[in-house]
């Protein structure tokens, strides 16, 4: 059962590229939702026929959280902040996509270098590295606070795939704790964006620069 896993991983990489290449916030949120759903399906697909109830339930929780709840929270933050809906990048779209290509090369290079990883599957670790780099890049290369949250979500997706790459049995309570923390993080960031917007009448993290030295 390697086919669906590979397909899902390729979709994860593609959504990463599309997010780098989009100029519209709403598209970026949709893409991050698609990526989130893929992430939730990964462990289910990887376990093949012998899917346990635990894997199924966790997968379901991730799909609901990343595919439905987070996009909703983010869309609400956009609606309430009366933004133009543009990404407002520091680094232009073309340059971003080129960065993405470089990131993918770097990801495969890293995977080759880190031969000590107990990699269960050829594509898993490179996808994880690529997604992590994409997330970090989005956080630093986009102006709006909300795109930084999207970047954070992509980063978390990458780390989750990385967890699968090293084939580790994380206890359910810890997984749930991590998910709960993520949920609260996005929730808190959403409120923060709302309050920043109310106070400053914008949500450019670019203009948050009164505190120095």
């Amino acid at each position: 059962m390697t086919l669906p896993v590979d397909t899902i991983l390729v979709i994860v990489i593609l959504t990463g590229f599309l997010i780098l290449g989009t100029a519209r916030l709403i598209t970026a949120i949709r893409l991050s939702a698609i990526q989130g759903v893929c992430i939730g399906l990964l462990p289910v697909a990887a376990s093949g026929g012998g899917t346990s109830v635990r894997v199924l339930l966790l997968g379901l929780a991730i799909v609901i959280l990343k595919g439905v709840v987070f996009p909703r929270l983010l869309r609400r933050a956009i609606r309430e902040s009366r933004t133009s809906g543009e990404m407002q990048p520091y680094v232009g779209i073309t340059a971003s996509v080129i960065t993405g290509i470089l990131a993918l090369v770097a990801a495969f290079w890293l995977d080759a270098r880190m031969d000590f990883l107990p990699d269960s599957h050829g594509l898993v670790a490179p996808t994880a590295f690529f997604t992590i780099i994409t997330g970090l890049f989005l956080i630093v290369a986009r102006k709006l606070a909300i795109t930084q949250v999207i970047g954070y979500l992509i980063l978390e997706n990458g780390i989750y795939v990385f967890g699968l790459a090293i084939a580790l049995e994380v206890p359910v309570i810890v997984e749930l704790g991590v998910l709960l923390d993520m949920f609260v993080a996005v929730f808190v960031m959403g409120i923060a964006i709302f309050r920043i917007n109310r106070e400053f009448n914008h949500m450019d993290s670019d203009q948050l620069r009164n505190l120095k030295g």
Partner: protein
Amino acid sequence: MNPGWILPLVLVLPALFAGAGLLVPSQRAALRLITFGTLAGAAVAVAAAALALSRAGELTSLGAWLMVDALSAYHLLVMAAVFSLSGLYARSYFAADAESGELSLRTARRFTALWFSSMAAMHLVLVSNNLGLMWVGIEATTLVTAFLICIHGTATSLEAMWKYLLMCSVGVALAFMGTLLVAASTHGSGVEGASALLWTELRDAATRLNPKLLKTGFLFLVIGYGTKAGLAPMHNWLPDAHSQAPAPVSAIFSGFLLNAALYCILRTLPLVEALPGNSGWGREILIAFGLISILVAAVFIIAQHDLKRLLAYSSVEHLGIVALGVGLGGLGHVAALFHILNNSVSKSVGFFCAGSIGHLAGTHDMRKINRVTALSRVWGLGLVGSLLAIIGAAPFALFLSEFLILYTAIQQGHTFIAAAFLAGLALVFVGALRHLISIAWEPLDGPVEPHRGTLLEGAIVFVPLTALLVLGVWVPAPFWSLLERAARVLGGAS
């Protein structure tokens, strides 16, 4: 009866108070709950620490998911001290706001709930034996403390909160990768499945762990938790958050939140050190981060005009000193642990006084604050005393712990490290002393009505400062043996 029952209580009690905080009927009740609830939470933590220390091994509970040994017991004690002082101070800090109605009931409730949630989260970090759960605790502290920063809702505090939230979330996410790598290093070491995240299991199997995975994991943990601990160059969020937060919150930030993050790094150090043929590798990394933090902070302290930012940069410096001491090892471990207590106590008192002086003077700009002792006897004298302690003036205990770390460096033949450390200390001393002299002795523009401090306010300022003075000249034997016991955990002994 198994005394392990107390460990879940350490978590549950503050969580219950957090829930109760949402239901308090008035602002006064909220302040009362903060004071007494914090003392109760701290008392349970002290009891847990005492129980753990009275035994030979570690105290475990809930299938070894919770664990307190000498290292965590010591941290629990420091945290109890910082939280008790801050809880008492919060009452005096917010009392005026509550009277004038500036502190709305909604804000008071939210503050109380978040305050106890952060206490519960920090307790979780300290009593957790499971590295994943420890991570959950650290991330939770970021989320609940974010809103404590902007409880006043000003534009600058929102900016500080956003930086804090984003930088620490990203940093802590990287620490999660480190945690996964550390757990993955158990492949083929005989540690089974889910117990790969249990610290005691990892420690017992330390010599059989996969070195490359463990070392990569350690790097991620140092970068990730180091961001939260305020180690330079990942410290950018820290001066903003610490200076914008209300003073009682700044006190727990500088006094303990940073230590909680550093504690997670300290936990992993003995694992890396135990790798065959790797002794010193992890410690060298800590030495590097420690020295960078000390020197970066020194430069910013010289150029600083804001009192609370000065204290915040001083936290970067002191966390750097702790990292340096831990990195040196041997006597350095003991001295670093000693320094943790000294820094936490002096920094908390420093933030109390800075907060109240800021209230009285209407500014935190040190160029506009003069003759603090004339503004208020308690807060003014306290500020001068705590600043002297913080910059390492003898005979405060900070001088002693810094001296011991310097001594260790020279004794081990690290002349360059000792020289850089000394240069950083000298820069901080001179830079901060200049500010101190101007705020303490420059004459006031006109006569002022001095603020009359209460007995309680005097106690939370002068009792800790006196304790630091005493510890600087005489360290009680039981306390020293506690430090040595905690240092043995750092050194890798079980």
